[in-house]
């Protein structure tokens, strides 16, 4: 989680010592997998955010239209709202 946060907000803080700390918990393969996954999501979530689309399913699991989803989830995806609420 620290790796994802730093890649997005403070990449200069990611140094050799940080990778040494990662290696205490993850293999080299897992670190590369994590880094690719984080980079991919970092790029795409901003792009998706500009497209203003909403979840395909209602909170009770129904497949819904974008119009209905917008009514349910409002001006921002529920995931972003809950993230902001926890700050």
């Amino acid at each position, binding site marked *: 989680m620290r790796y994802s946060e730093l890649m997005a907000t403070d990449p200069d803080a990611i140094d050799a010592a940080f990778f040494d700390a990662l290696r205490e918990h993850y293999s*080299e393969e897992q670190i590369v997998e994590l880094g690719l996954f984080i*980079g991919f999501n970092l790029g795409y979530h901003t792009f998706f955010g500009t497209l203003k689309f909403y979840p395909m399913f209602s909170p009770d699991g129904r497949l819904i239209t974008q119009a209905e989803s917008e009514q349910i989830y409002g001006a921002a995806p529920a995931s972003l709202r809950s993230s902001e609420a926890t700050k």
Partner: protein
Amino acid sequence: MTYVEPLSREAITDPEMRELMAQGEALGVPDDLFPRIVARAPEQAKPFMRALLFSHAEGNVDHRLKEIIRILLARFAGDEYFAALRSRKAREMGLTEERIEAGCGDYEDSDAFTEAEKCALRYADQMYLDATKVDAAFYAELKKHYSEAQIMELGAFIAFHYGMQMFMRSLGATAPRSPA
């Protein structure tokens, strides 16, 4: 040296991965560093290499414009590695360093770019600078110049390459000694 040591070329034995690495080297983007690092996660490496190459060199948006956008993004990401690489295909199509610099600089006031090209450059520029400006009005402007398919191609290209540039920056990757 990157924080994750790249595999040696000889250690990459998967034929498809070797082919993708050769395609990257022929294009000039990426050189062998990116694939030698991602090959440490073999199941991830091939789809990521395919996406990197395909989104950049294929599709229905001018490759030269994508190349300028890619370099603009790499500079914004602070990624010395991808910022230093150059597409041979774009160079063969006539893209010059002067035009790259113009596209990465004050392109809005430049006569070197069409309104469509400026709009695409603005798309990349604003995406990670101030995404709130990439709104319905912005997409309406993009649609004056590009089809929906081209806009998705551009957006996905921008998102993917920026993400990979941030990944390489996080690894401490620097510019190759002899840029292609």
